[in-house]
């Protein structure tokens, strides 16, 4: 039987391989496209206002996911492009890389999307995103004051997240 409290967060954090902060920014969205959290560490260029920026990011992921599922050569069961899929249907991508940045993406069946934009040379961050999801569960979901679907204001979560992201190489 299990309740609130300091249970360990699984999986335990992957060991960072080098020091230094490679992260540019991070987004957390819920299924309704509400940006629960936006954090930036190193972003010299802003071209849009924050709302437009969040919307564009969400739209990019939504469309890209739909496109990747459409192009899947292994699965016959796919609808028309743009037709809504059931959650968990179709394949999904976990990262893409350009010459200037890498975007890592995780989506849970409950519709939480975690996006981390880092230096293009960053390695596989799937385990790290899972760990961040664990932080979200411990510090946000289990916080009785937090009302689901609202932007996250938890100091504790922010601190833990900042510390962890800075340790990712």
């Amino acid at each position, binding site marked *: 039987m299990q309740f609130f409290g300091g249970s360990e967060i699984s999986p335990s954090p992957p060991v960072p391989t080098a020091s230094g902060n490679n992260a540019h920014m991070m987004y957390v969205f819920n*299924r309704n496209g509400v940006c629960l959290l936006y954090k930036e560490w190193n972003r010299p260029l802003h071209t849009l206002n924050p709302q437009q920026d969040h919307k564009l990011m969400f739209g990019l992921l939504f469309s890209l996911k739909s496109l990747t599922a459409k192009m899947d050569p292994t699965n016959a069961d796919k609808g028309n492009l743009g037709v809504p899929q059931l959650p968990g249907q179709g394949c999904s991508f976990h990262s893409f890389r350009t010459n200037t940045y890498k975007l890592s993406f995780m989506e849970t069946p409950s519709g939480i999307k975690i996006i981390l934009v880092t230096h293009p040379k960053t390695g596989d961050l799937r385990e790290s995103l899972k760990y961040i999801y664990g932080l979200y569960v411990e510090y946000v*979901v289990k916080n009785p004051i937090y009302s689901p679907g609202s932007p996250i204001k938890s100091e504790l979560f922010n601190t833990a997240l900042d510390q962890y992201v800075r340790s990712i190489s």
Partner: protein
Amino acid sequence: MAPVGPRSGDAIFSSIDRVNAELFTLTYGAIVRQLLTDLEDVDEVNKQLDQMGYNIGIRLIDEFLAKSGVSRCVDFKETAEMIAKVGFKMFLGVTASVSSWDADGTCCSIILEDNPLVDFVELPDTCQGLYYCNVLSGVIRGALEMVSMKTEVTWTRDALRGDDAYELQVKLLKQVAEEYPYKDDE
């Protein structure tokens, strides 16, 4: 890196912090008792317990997903098995069994032989209409709603009312498709 498969209910149960079972049972009992005093009507208490369960369920799902490593279920059958074998084990320390599927695979029963919520409980004559464990049906409904399954969860057997086990009927009403949430580009 090989994808890590879902962890078993037992493995998760043994790796997380737990509270004393009696404390848990008595706390739940105290809540139900207080609701009966405050609301004075058994049906209202049933409703309130269901609502409390729902509020728990919509949060619980994230903890379930994060700790179990479950990524997706292919169909409702697998979902029901997952609730019975992993979910109940992880949060209540008991396992349930799934049976009585209908022909379309959208309705089934989850049967609990052992229910830690009801230790020390006897329903007095004045509370015969009470679904003492109604919080559980709310939890399942809330958790499934977060993974886009609208369900209806009802008690079909309740040992406190003289049946031989606890049985929840879970009926899948519809699966909600993923939609682009913004209306248009305003």
